[in-house]
């Protein structure tokens, strides 16, 4: 069974809370083809190959400035590799 980095699922678990709702919605809107699952206390979002969180889309929904560092208050776990985490976006994907 071989898979490619482009399609193999990556994902992130986010604590279910009012403040994180905008983050979850932003991820949903940014990542076409992602799947959102609700588990006790958390929301799990998976996507094939790549999952992106952009500052812009979170700020749009949150109605205030949001630093990507703030994602640390929301994230519970992830699988994949954090390929990028800069001022504008966070990218989770596989390397190979």
């Amino acid at each position: 069974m071989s898979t490619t980095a482009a399609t193999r699922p990556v994902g992130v678990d986010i604590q279910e809370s009012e403040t994180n709702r905008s983050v979850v919605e932003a991820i949903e809107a940014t990542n076409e083809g992602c799947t959102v699952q609700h588990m006790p206390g958390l929301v799990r979002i998976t996507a094939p190959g790549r999952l992106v969180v952009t500052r812009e889309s979170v700020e749009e929904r949150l109605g205030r400035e949001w630093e990507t560092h703030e994602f640390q208050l929301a994230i519970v776990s992830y699988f994949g590799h954090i390929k990028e985490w800069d001022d504008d976006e966070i990218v989770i994907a596989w390397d190979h």
Partner: protein
Amino acid sequence: MTIAPKAPRKLTMKQRYEALTRDLDWEPSYVETSEVFPYTEFEGIKIHDWSKWEDPFRLTVDAYTKYQAEKDKRLYAVLDGFAQSQGHLSLTEASYLNAMKLFLQGVTPLEYQAHRNFAYLARHLNGPGPRFAALCQSIDEMRHTQTEIHTLSNYNKYYGGFHNYLEQHDRVWYLSVPKSFFDDALTAGPFEFLIAIGFSFEYLLTNLLFVPFMSGASFNGDLPTMTFGFSAQSDESRHMTLGLEAIKFLLEQDEANVPIVQAWIDKWFWRGYRVTALVAQMLDYMLPRKVMSWKEAFELYFEEQMLGGLFQDLAFYGITPPKHVEHAIAEKEVLSHQVYWTLYQFSHAAAFTTTFPDAEAQSWLSDNYPGTFDKLYKPLWDKEARNLEAGGRHFVRGLPQLCQVCQIPMLFTEPDDPTTICQRHSEYRGEKFQTCSDGCQWIFEREPEKYVQAWLPVHQIYQGNCGGPTVPDVLAWYGIQEGDGGEYKGSLDAAHWARWHDAADHSHIGSEA
């Protein structure tokens, strides 16, 4: 007067991180570099360029303290509110707390061990990037130690089993399982420790270990544990990243590192997997309201995400899935049942209670383990039901044989035969050593010099080093008090629970006025 250029460009997060963290290093010239970093060569790992280490989080101290302070503010507000409102009474059932007793006794001291040894890494790794990441993790682990203690401290005030967790971690038989696991990692060199804890434990197994605990807490009315758990897990994502970066860094630095790293993955997967046996029974038996079965958790968090995701990625470097992983997969149908059956029989010598799974629980087990529960384990519980009716309650009248490596009682069965207990034998310097599985035997034979030192609780009891020759002597030495262990039904916790819930009933208020 010098005039600086106006409106200087703000550094990007990456540039800022580079400038503030990675550039702090210099090459020593008054002393030898090898004397400054004496521990990074003996393991055989070759590093050519420490600056190739990536830290995607790009944290700096100001950002770290800002977000960590915010996390703790939220967490302690929940703890205070819960304590003030007698929140413990809103749990599903006092027996739920057995999972938390195991957590405080077994896991919290490990967080502390991690704290100390990440400080070692924060001193002794040659590169400033990994040193800073290790330092953040070191103080994060102190945070986890303390937030766990502070969360569970409130339960300790009302329930048994929590009160002597520190001494017990050093002494009690079942706690030598997690303790020896971490002692093994701390006594390894810095790179092996990184693979053992940073990668195998934090990345490979952490979801399997913690997410079920936290979801279980959420499902059973334990708001503080859920809050500390998720809050800790948010640090954990940084730790997972450190582990993943560590492995990729080692693999990319030199091809000769690959077989060394592979052997560590093989060892530490199995070592860590054995520790998760305690989580397996917790999920399937200890939680009054079940979240998911061990089998489901294993399939999701390990088989799908790790074997299906991570190891495909690592295949690029020539890394293969861990040795003996097929045995872990085969065990997913039987593991929790075997472990709980064992804890059920030994809980008279433990600081948690167990009880007979009622009809509802058994039907859940039967639904979730259609291939094994009815055939293999239900008959045991049926026999125990008759035993209970006859006034018996099965507790083992003696001591079990322990595996020399994982230190769990020799309860595991052959991978292809769930009715035959697995016994593996090795000899080292004329002495016999038994292990519970091919995985543990392989680990023993790789480094017998290490595992012959194991402080095996059963052997120590028989040497007279644990308070005295009788079971009450040993229990006294463990600091176990009336109500800590044994059967849950009729226990002190159960009695208190019933009384407090009666007392909290509205109907009593008028009559006492």
